[in-house]
C-alpha cells in the first residue's frame, strides 16, 4: 500500500494542484478543450459538409457514379470512374518512380552516405518539399511537357507497346506522374529516414561488430527492423499523391478518358475539382464535384490512418527516452 502510494505521487500532486488555481484553472482547461474540440469539429465538419453538398448527386446518380466514366456537365451526366482511374494510375506510376530513389536517399542519409554530406543533402531534400506545388505545375507545363514531347516520348514510342502509343502532346498521364514523383520524393525520403534512424544503434553496431559491411547491416538487420515504418512512409506518399492538385491539374491534359496509353490526356479526382468547381454551372454539377471530393476524402483518410498506424508502431519498436519519460499523471517514482 505504501509502496503504491510512493510510486504514484502525481495523483496526489494533481489533487493539490486543483486547489491552487480554482476557477481560473477550470477556465483555462475549458479554453484548451474548446480549441482542441474545434479541431475535431473541423474534421467532422469537412466530411459532413462535403457530403451535404454532394447529396443531390448521390441521390441522382447512385452507384453509376463510380461505375461509369461518362462526364458531361452540359447534359448532366456524371460518372467519376475515369477520375478515380486517373488518380490511381498517376499515383502508382509516381510511386514506382519515386520509391526506389527516395529509399536510396534515405539510406544515404542514415547509413551509406559520407557523414559530411548528410546534413546538406537533408536540407536540400527538405527544400524540395518546400517548393509550392503551383510552381512545380508551372515548371512542368512549360519545361517538362515540351521536353517530353520533343525528346522523351518519341524515344519511348520507338519502344512501342500499348503504354507508349497515341498522339504525343507532352501533356498527359506520363507528365503528371513524373511531376508527382518529384513531389512525393521528399515525403517518402524524410519519413523513411526518420524510421531508419529510429532503429536502435545497438542492432547496427552488433551487425558491424560481427563483420557485416554497412550494406549487409542495412539489408539484413536495419531494414527488416524498419520494414513496417518504411511501408508506412510509402503509404503516406501515396496519400499525398492522391490529394496533390495544382501540379497535376496543370499537366494532366484534363480529359475524362480511360486509356491504357501513358501519352494520353487523363484526369484525376483532385484536378477535376480544381478545374471545374469555380465555373460549375448547375447545382447538380457542383454536387457531382463534391461527390468526387467525398471519394477523395475517403481514400486519403484511409491511407493516412493506415500509414500513421504503421509508422507509429515501427517507432515504438525503438526505445525513445522521450516516450519512456513520465508524463503528468504517469508517475515519477523517487
Amino acid at each position, binding site marked *: 500500500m505504501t509502496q503504491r502510494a510512493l510510486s504514484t505521487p502525481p495523483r496526489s*500532486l494533481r489533487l493539490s494542484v486543483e486547489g*491552487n488555481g*480554482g476557477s481560473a*484553472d477550470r*477556465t483555462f*482547461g475549458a*479554453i*484548451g478543450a474548446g*480549441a*482542441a474540440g*474545434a*479541431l*475535431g469539429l*473541423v*474534421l467532422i*465538419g*469537412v466530411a459532413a*459538409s*462535403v457530403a451535404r*453538398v454532394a447529396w443531390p448527386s448521390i441521390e441522382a446518380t447512385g452507384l453509376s457514379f463510380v461505375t461509369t466514366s461518362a462526364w458531361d456537365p452540359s447534359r448532366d451526366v456524371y460518372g467519376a470512374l475515369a477520375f478515380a482511374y486517373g488518380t490511381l494510375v498517376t499515383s502508382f506510376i509516381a510511386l514506382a518512380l519515386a520509391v526506389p*530513389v527516395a*529509399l*536510396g*536517399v534515405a539510406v*544515404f542519409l542514415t547509413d*551509406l*552516405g559520407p557523414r559530411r554530406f548528410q546534413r546538406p*543533402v537533408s*536540407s536540400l531534400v*527538405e527544400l*524540395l518539399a*518546400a*517548393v*509550392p506545388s*503551383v*510552381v512545380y505545375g*508551372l515548371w512542368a507545363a*512549360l519545361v517538362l511537357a515540351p521536353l517530353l514531347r520533343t525528346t522523351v516520348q518519341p524515344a519511348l514510342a520507338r519502344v512501342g507497346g500499348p503504354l507508349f502509343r497515341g498522339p504525343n502532346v507532352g501533356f498527359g498521364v506520363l507528365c503528371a506522374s513524373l511531376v508527382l514523383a*518529384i513531389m512525393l520524393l521528399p515525403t517518402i525520403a524524410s519519413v523513411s529516414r526518420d524510421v531508419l534512424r529510429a532503429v536502435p544503434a545497438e542492432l547496427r553496431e552488433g551487425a558491424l561488430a560481427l563483420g557485416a*559491411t554497412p*550494406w549487409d547491416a542495412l539489408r539484413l538487420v536495419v531494414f527488416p527492423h524498419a520494414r513496417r515504418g518504411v511501408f508506412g512512409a510509402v503509404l503516406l506518399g501515396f496519400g*499525398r499523391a492522391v*490529394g496533390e*492538385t*495544382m501540379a497535376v491539374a*496543370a499537366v494532366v491534359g484534363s480529359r475524362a478518358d480511360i486509356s491504357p496509353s501513358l501519352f494520353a490526356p487523363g484526369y484525376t479526382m*483532385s484536378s477535376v*475539382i*480544381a478545374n471545374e*468547381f*469555380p465555373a460549375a454551372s448547375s447545382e447538380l454539377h457542383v454536387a457531382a464535384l463534391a461527390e468526387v471530393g467525398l471519394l*477523395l476524402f475517403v481514400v*486519403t*483518410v484511409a491511407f*493516412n490512418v493506415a500509414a500513421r498506424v504503421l509508422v507509429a508502431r515501427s517507432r515504438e519498436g525503438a526505445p525513445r527516452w*522521450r516516450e519512456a519519460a*513520465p508524463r*503528468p*499523471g504517469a508517475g*515519477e517514482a523517487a
Partner: protein
Amino acid sequence: MTPELESAYRGRKLAARVAPAASGAAVVLALLPLFAVFAYVASHGARALSLTFFTEPVGVRGAGMANAIFGTIELVVLASAMGIPLGIAAGLYLAEYASTPLARAVRFSADVLAGVPSILVGVVVYAVVVVRMKQFSALAGAAALAVVMLPLVTRTTDELARAVPDSLREAALALGAPRWRTALFVVLRTAAPGIRSGCLLAVARVSGETAPLLFTAYNNRFFNESLLDPTSTLQVQIFTYTMTPNDDWHAQAWAAALVLVTLVIVLNVLARRLVAEEESG
C-alpha cells in the same frame, strides 16, 4: 578458401562498394529536379521582373502583380491570426491533458486532417462561407488557409510541449503556481523557440497553398477594396497564367513564381535558423 566461399566474399565486397554508390546516385537523381526548377524560376523570373511588377495590379496594361503580392501577404497574415493562436491553444491542451480520451481523439483527428487534400478544405469553406456570404472573399480564403495551418501548428506545439521535462512542471506546481500559469509561463515558454519555428514552417507552407484558394478567395484583377471582396494571390495568378497559351503571361508567371519561392524559402531558412540557434545556444 573454397571457391564458393571466395565467390560469396567477392559478391559481398562488390555489394559493399555498389550500394553506397547507388545511394549517391539516387541523391543526385533526386536533387536534379530541384536544381532544374530553381534554375528556370531564377532565370526566367529575373528576366520578367520589373518595377511595375511590384507597383501595378494585374488589370492594368503592361501590368504587374502588386495586387497579387499584397493578396498573398494579406491572406497569410489573416490566416495566421486565426490559425496560430487556436493551434497553440489546442496543442498545449493536448500536451497538458495528454491522457484524456478527448485529447487522444483530437490528436488523431489532427493527424488525419493534416493528410486531407487541401482542395477539399476549399470545397468546405466554399460550402460554409462563400455560399452563405454569396461571394468570394479574402476572408473565406484566409479561413481556408487557417484550416490548413491548424493541424500543423497543433501537432508541433503538442510534440514540443510534451518534450518539456516534467520536473519543470512539478517545480512550478510545488511553488504554488496553478496549472494554467504552469502551462503558459513554464511549459509554453520553455517550448517557445521550437513552436515559433514550427509556426514559421506552417506559414511557409500555406504561403504556397493554391488549391484551397481557387474558389474561396478566387481572383481579382485589381486590389480588393475590402476583406469581403474576391482577392488575387500570387499562387492563383501563377496557375491562371500557366493555363493560358500566352508567352507574356508565362513570363509574368515565372516572375511571380520567383517572388513566391523566395518568400517561402526565406520563411523556411528563418525557421531553421531559429532551431539551429536553439540547439547551439
